[in-house]
């Protein structure tokens, strides 16, 4: 049985225990002292990161392969891809194209994107003899570094994804310019153009 005195003490202990919970709002572990600025010197820890050697090449940043990173071989744009062009690459190209290119170039590449209405000068259509004749490397270079009113997208799109876009642009060009006689016979029949 609890005596009156001990029950008082019990109440005090319970209240004290609960009051500790009040402190929880004071201990803000969400804000902690950390070396958030990697190159800023801290007297206790030095810098969080060491300065890079000026000649160091970060992993994945070597640029010896000129075809992959510049679209050139021996300083000339080449009509070649550094990887196999398959359905998967073209599908990835479509995703990237529709993220980065359609605002100006439009979904089919005629240069009729939504931003033309906002005042951006329409870019050239891909479906001209001049642009169809350009090598793949040329497109890669334009995506990377820009041309005319178009700023470069090299900082935002990975090289492999830029090549995927080039593959998709080629697919768009074929889709809008195909000699009927060059199609396989079953597709010729399907196109519905033969009987016209």
């Amino acid at each position: 049985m609890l005596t009156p005195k001990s029950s008082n003490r019990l109440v005090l202990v319970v209240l004290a225990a609960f009051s500790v919970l009040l402190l929880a709002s004071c201990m803000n572990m969400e804000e902690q002292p950390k070396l958030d600025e990697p190159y800023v010197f801290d007297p206790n820890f030095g810098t969080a990161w060491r300065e890079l050697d000026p000649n160091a090449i970060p992993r994945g940043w070597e640029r010896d392969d000129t075809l992959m990173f510049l679209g050139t071989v021996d300083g000339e744009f080449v009509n070649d891809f550094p990887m196999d062009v398959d359905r998967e690459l073209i599908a990835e190209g479509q995703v990237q194209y529709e993220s980065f290119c359609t605002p100006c170039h439009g979904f089919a590449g005629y240069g009729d994107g939504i931003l033309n209405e906002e005042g951006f000068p329409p870019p050239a259509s891909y479906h001209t003899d001049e642009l169809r004749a350009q090598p793949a490397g040329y497109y890669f270079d334009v995506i990377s570094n820009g041309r005319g009113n178009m700023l470069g997208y090299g900082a935002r799109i990975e090289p492999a994804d830029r090549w995927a876009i080039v593959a998709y642009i080629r697919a768009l060009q074929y889709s809008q310019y195909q000699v009927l006689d060059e199609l396989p016979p079953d597709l010729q029949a399907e196109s519905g153009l033969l009987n016209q």
Partner: protein
Amino acid sequence: MQIFRPGVNTVAKISILAGALVTVLVLNFLFVQDRSPYSRARAGIAVAQPVRFSHQLHSDQLNISCNYCHASANEYAYAGIPDTHTCMSCHSQIAVYSELLEPVRTSYETGDPLVWNKVHDLAEHVYFNHGVHVQNGVGCETCHGRVDQMALVWQAETMTMAWCLECHFAPEDFIRPADEIFTFGYEPPIDQAVLGEQLLEEYEINPEGLGDCWVCHR
């Protein structure tokens, strides 16, 4: 002299219990209030920014992909904020004399980055990887709300640990197909209970370990 009647003993005992109960209720209220969407997320309360950039205009009206500006959000741990080069990709030609864009042009010319105010500030002891979430079926909308309807952005969800764990304990209730990540106003094409299980297999997500401490804390 007898001041208190014997019945006061009961009153005293009840008042002690009632006092403890009120204390617990008050503390409970404070805790719940502290973690509510109102005080945590400040839902509906936009964060002021140096440039009045409207997601509603760019995303909803112009239908520009999230990816166009947030290019690193898909793959990298840090979602990143677009540089002014990205803004100038269009604004070198559009609204070139707009006063609102003066800080953007200045930043582009001088190379000094715009300092945007952080909207989603996670706790310091959480090692959050943005890309992993995007690549495993968490849509933009799931955490950021209807950003496409926001002029200035606010934090739509509480971003408390309990909120994270809702999905970490049951990802199948929230994930969506890879081609619906950027969709706003998404509705599951089939029953989420069925779709969720399919997607778990597709993304090769093992929900067993997702609730472990080390997944987010080190």
